[in-house]
């Protein structure tokens, strides 16, 4: 791997004490929120050092979420692609059907530790909303989920799930009424209710310490996968592949491997209709800016006005990316590519057909990237992709895209 900058001793010591990953990250929030952000940082530091906190987190992941998730070798997909061996980390088998729950368990334990009595969250496709509503039901806390009105309309099954779980779902009509606007509205609620409310952010983005703590909670994916791979094959994988919206499943897989120099990593952004048209690939098509509490790559115009992202996957159509990915790209430790809606649909069907697994449209992007790179790799090489969600939620929109009437 060629690095653009001198290699640091470790890639795993970010962020710095001010919450910066190189030039990215930080705490760009209104003054009203700043004291709470500092409280959260103090409380998270204390929780990290508290064995009881870690023990409760581990216990819930094992007995409530169903971890560890399996590490699976995909024989027919490997054969079809005719190159490197394809393995999957099966986080789609988690309770609630995606990796999102890992982070929600960690954050609700923090909320309780801080004495907060009300939970808010934003959601795009509804997966993070469902995971948040789930942990709120589990711990008996009231929960308000902000969701763009456009997403409410196109993700009705998840809206119903959240309501069944006791959450209040607030449709947001501002802007384009999607994930970005839901996040704005959650921040507006938070600023008015700082005294009793904890904001469970769904991805490894937002003001420090969110990118760090979400990464840490999601790192269970990579820690398990690393141990499982060593135990099954006696070696580390050659390439990790994961889809990226905000980037929480990817950073969760990548982070425990960052200091293994032989392990290459590939993050897959959503190229939507194509990078020259509407897309959600902030690294490929954006430049650094400040939004939602952090500095990172953003889709924006010359004046710094934010441009709406587009992807077939409602979980990826966000115009930014977690700040640690922005840093990992700039220091050259992780490679990033992008996959179009059409390629993702193709990857979706490929996995259904070869392995009997219906993936969510988010990891379908990772599968499409695997399809592209596996044939170029030797047969004894190992590719490990994160299967971060299952496709139950997507079958209606996939049917529509394939022209099938249900």
């Amino acid at each position: 791997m060629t690095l653009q900058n001198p290699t640091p001793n470790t890639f795993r010591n970010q962020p710095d004490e001010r919450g910066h990953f190189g030039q990215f990250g930080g705490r760009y929030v209104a003054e009203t929120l700043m004291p709470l952000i500092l409280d959260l940082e103090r409380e998270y530091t204390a929780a990290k050092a508290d064995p009881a906190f870690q023990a409760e987190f581990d216990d819930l992941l094992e007995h409530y979420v169903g971890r560890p998730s399996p590490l699976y070798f995909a024989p027919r997909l490997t054969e079809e692609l005719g190159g490197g061996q394809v393995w999957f980390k099966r986080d789609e088998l988690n309770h609630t059907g995606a990796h999102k729950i890992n982070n929600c368990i960690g954050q609700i334990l923090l909320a309780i530790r801080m004495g907060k009595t009300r939970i808010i969250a934003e959601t795009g496709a509804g997966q993070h909303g469902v995971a948040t509503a789930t942990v709120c039901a589990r711990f008996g806390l009231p929960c308000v989920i902000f969701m763009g009105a456009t997403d409410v309309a196109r993700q009705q099954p998840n809206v119903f799930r959240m309501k069944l779980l006791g959450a209040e779902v607030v449709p947001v009509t501002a802007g384009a009424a999607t994930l970005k606007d839901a996040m704005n509205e959650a921040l507006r609620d938070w600023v008015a209710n700082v005294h009793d409310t904890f904001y469970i952010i769904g991805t490894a983005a937002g003001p420090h310490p969110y990118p760090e703590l979400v990464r840490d909670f999601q790192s269970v994916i990579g820690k398990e996968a690393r141990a499982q791979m060593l135990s099954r094959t006696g070696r580390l994988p050659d390439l990790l592949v994961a889809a990226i919206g905000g980037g929480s499943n990817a950073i969760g897989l990548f982070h425990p491997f960052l200091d293994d120099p032989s392990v290459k990593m590939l993050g897959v952004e959503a190229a939507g209709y194509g990078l020259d048209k509407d897309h959600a690939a902030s690294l490929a098509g954006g430049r650094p800016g400040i939004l939602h509490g952090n500095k990172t790559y953003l889709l924006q115009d010359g004046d710094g006005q934010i441009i709406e992202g587009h992807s077939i996957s409602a979980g990826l159509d966000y115009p930014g990316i977690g700040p640690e990915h922005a840093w990992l790209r700039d220091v050259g430790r992780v490679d990033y590519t992008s996959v179009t809606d059409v390629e993702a649909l193709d990857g979706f069907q490929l996995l259904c057909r070869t392995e009997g697994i219906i993936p969510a449209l988010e990891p379908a992007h990772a599968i499409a990237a695997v399809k592209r790179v596996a044939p170029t790799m030797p047969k004894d090489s190992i590719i490990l992709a994160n299967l971060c969600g299952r496709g139950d939620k997507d079958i209606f929109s996939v049917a529509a895209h394939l022209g099938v009437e249900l």
Partner: protein
Amino acid sequence: MTRFEQAFAKGPALVAFVTGGDPTPDATAAILDALVEGGADVIELGMPFTDPMADGPAIQRANLRSLGAGTTTADIFAIAAAFRARHPQVPLVLMGYANPMITRGPEWFAAECAKAGVDGVICVDIPPEEDPELGPALRGAGVALIRLATPTTDAARLPAVLEGSSGFLYYVSVAGITGMQQAAQASIDEAVARIKQHAKIPVAVGFGVRTPEQAAAIAKVADGVVVGSALVDLVGQHGVNAAGPVRELTRALADAVHSARGE
């Protein structure tokens, strides 16, 4: 004496906010003139942003109207420069969000502010912890960085908020977004008294102030009263014909603020 010092030396000042380019870039000049004619002492010109996450519905809509009319950052500086030419003595503040301010580099933004005759900048989402992002560039260009203090800014944080602030301090009287509920007057009295013990610059109070009565009560204790959403609502209602109604409300607010200490 800076324009800010002159404006606040006369007694309590009315600080009036409208969003630049709302309803159109061309219509803003007449609305700003109406604020001055109505008696506003300091003008806050909002820079429109796609994601105004500290603002309530009134100013969110104003941002969308402005961007929908095609307002650019260049338009905002043109509006500011023209205002400065028409009103050499009235302090002018740009208020907005970080991304449009830093997107061409903070030095570029600070230099444009200085060139357009902008006296100060309020950036909602750059707290003291991230001051290097914008503060040094503004101070270097002789443009005041006006920070926000809020009900959650405790005694331990206040010095950090005041450090590097100039022009005036903007006390956000409610933990919340613009244009919603008003804080209890007693809590404003207490907070302003506490802040004024430490602040060497004037303290203006805003968020949720809509009526002359509210403005008068705040002017008894604070150096300035900020009104935004109520004026922006009039722009939303009357569009390109908003200057008249804006002038009327501004006059009522200014009279209330200016006479508050004489009572």
